[in-house]
């Protein structure tokens, strides 16, 4: 499912390259001919009005909704399923009895599985006919070949490191539902860190946070970015997007992709910035 939409390349220039992609559901195109790329260390903010296709883009980048047309390539050793995703919070989570550590550890759920796929890819690299055979395997058998029911010691260490990196070590045993909004986002960010080596995908990360927690979280994300992680952030908050991101992808019928400076100069950017200022 996830692996088929992405083409893995040996490129060291980019993590993700989206070329002439058409996004949409059930053959209904939402957005045509979208092209952009994310290089190592980039901080890309995705902005645009509601219904413009931001959430479809997220699903496509996660490999959950295949693009209707076009190609998505990955580089720098990245493959589908290794994006550190920070989803929006759901109602379920507000009442969920789980400790911080349990949640962060669940970020490692694909780790062994990912290692497995790598091996497979390596085995079949030189023989394309084998790749085809591998694809034929049923969902069930692929589930079992990748099935690792329990976490390893390395996973637990990884979770601990991520918790420390997010500055929430003291909360490790606390119950998730008792934490403040900002603390909860740090927990989910730590989980995302467990799932990735190089890129974070954040879906409206500051929704529902108070101003102080919002600033703190933006600074934290900026620190992660400075430490070498690429960041894709989908956001309503244009001011902060302009302040923190170095690239902007504005999704609309004629989309914009470029550096933040270019965006400020562009017609679409100026129009959108003015509109936001009026709100």
């Amino acid at each position: 499912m996830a692996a088929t939409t992405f083409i893995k390349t040996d490129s060291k220039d980019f993590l993700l390259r989206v070329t002439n992609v058409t996004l949409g559901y059930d053959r209904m195109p939402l957005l045509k001919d979208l092209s952009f790329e994310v290089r190592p260390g980039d901080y890309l903010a995705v902005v645009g009005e509601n219904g413009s296709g931001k959430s479809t883009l997220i699903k496509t980048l996660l490999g959950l909704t295949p693009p209707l047309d076009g190609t998505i390539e990955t580089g720098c050793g990245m493959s589908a399923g290794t994006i550190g995703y920070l989803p929006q919070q759901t109602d379920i989570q507000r009442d969920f009895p789980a400790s911080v550590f349990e949640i962060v550890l669940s970020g490692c759920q694909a780790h062994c599985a990912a290692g497995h796929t790598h091996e497979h890819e390596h085995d079949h690299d030189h023989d394309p006919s084998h790749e085809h055979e591998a694809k034929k395997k049923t969902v069930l058998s692929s589930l079992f070949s990748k099935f690792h029911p329990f976490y390893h010691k390395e996973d637990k260490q990884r979770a601990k490191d991520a918790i420390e990196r997010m500055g929430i070590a003291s909360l490790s045993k606390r119950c998730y539902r008792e934490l403040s909004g900002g603390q909860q986002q740090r927990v989910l960010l730590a989980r995302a860190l467990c799932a990735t080596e190089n890129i974070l995908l954040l879906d409206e990360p500051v929704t529902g946070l108070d101003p102080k927690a919002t600033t703190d979280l933006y600074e934290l994300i900026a620190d992660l970015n400075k430490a070498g992680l690429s960041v894709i952030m989908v956001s309503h908050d244009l001011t902060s997007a302009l302040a923190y991101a170095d690239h902007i992808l504005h999704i609309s019928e004629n989309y914009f992709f470029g550096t933040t400076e270019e965006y400020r100069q562009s017609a679409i950017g100026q129009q959108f910035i003015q509109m936001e200022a009026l709100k």
Partner: protein
Amino acid sequence: MNIFETIGLYLSYPFARYALIVGVLIALCASLLGVTLVLKRFSFIGDGLSHVAFGAIAIASVLKLSNNMLIVLPITILSAILLLKSGRKAIIKGDAMIAMLSVGALAFGYLLMNVFPSSSNISGDVCSTLFGSFSILTLKQSDVWICLALSVIVLAAFVLFYNKIFAVTFDESFAQAVGTKAQLYNLLIAVIIAIIIVLAMNLVGSLLISALVIFPALSAMRVFKSFRSVTIASALISVFGALFGILFSMLFDTPVGSTIVAIDVLVFFVFWIIGRVRG
């Protein structure tokens, strides 16, 4: 004769020992998925399925099958899958669908039982199917073996998939993003629920099953903070309720199912107060 001697006397009979072993096992299985069911808003599915199982039992008794399970188990599992699959894109929405299925099955079950009576005491049959009454005390050895086998399957599946069930319950979007086949695990959860319901019909009857599934989990959630401790606590609570419920009903000649559920309800209030006092 004091109470312990009476219990000792009862336990010298095989039917009483069967009842205790099977009852405790069923209670254990039923409690495990409680948290998932409550949080995923699946509790009504459990309720609906138990009515479907009632209908299936009516069919089985009309067909005069030597073993009900042969027909009840497949029908219930199939309905579980149907309910889950129809969840998102259904013409008739989830709740209404469940309501339709459950009352429909109830009506047809009762109708069948009346039109093709399998014994002279229809209301007795219906009552024992709905409330379990004493059926746990009339288990044949083959029933005991089937219950044992199904319980082992449920327990094994739960232990093996514990981490995945946690991940899928807590955050389906994230689980999918890192390549976990969330739909497949939802299906697995539905199948386990169906098995548990068929099992639990023996113990508490079809109307009280939800109580067996939900109360221990809700009680544990008042006091405990991590998923693991909640799961363990609800298993213990449920086993305690079944053990004391069955012994109590033997000693004082009360209906087994409702005694167990009454104890579970009491435990819930105790835990609720403890949770309140602790803040």
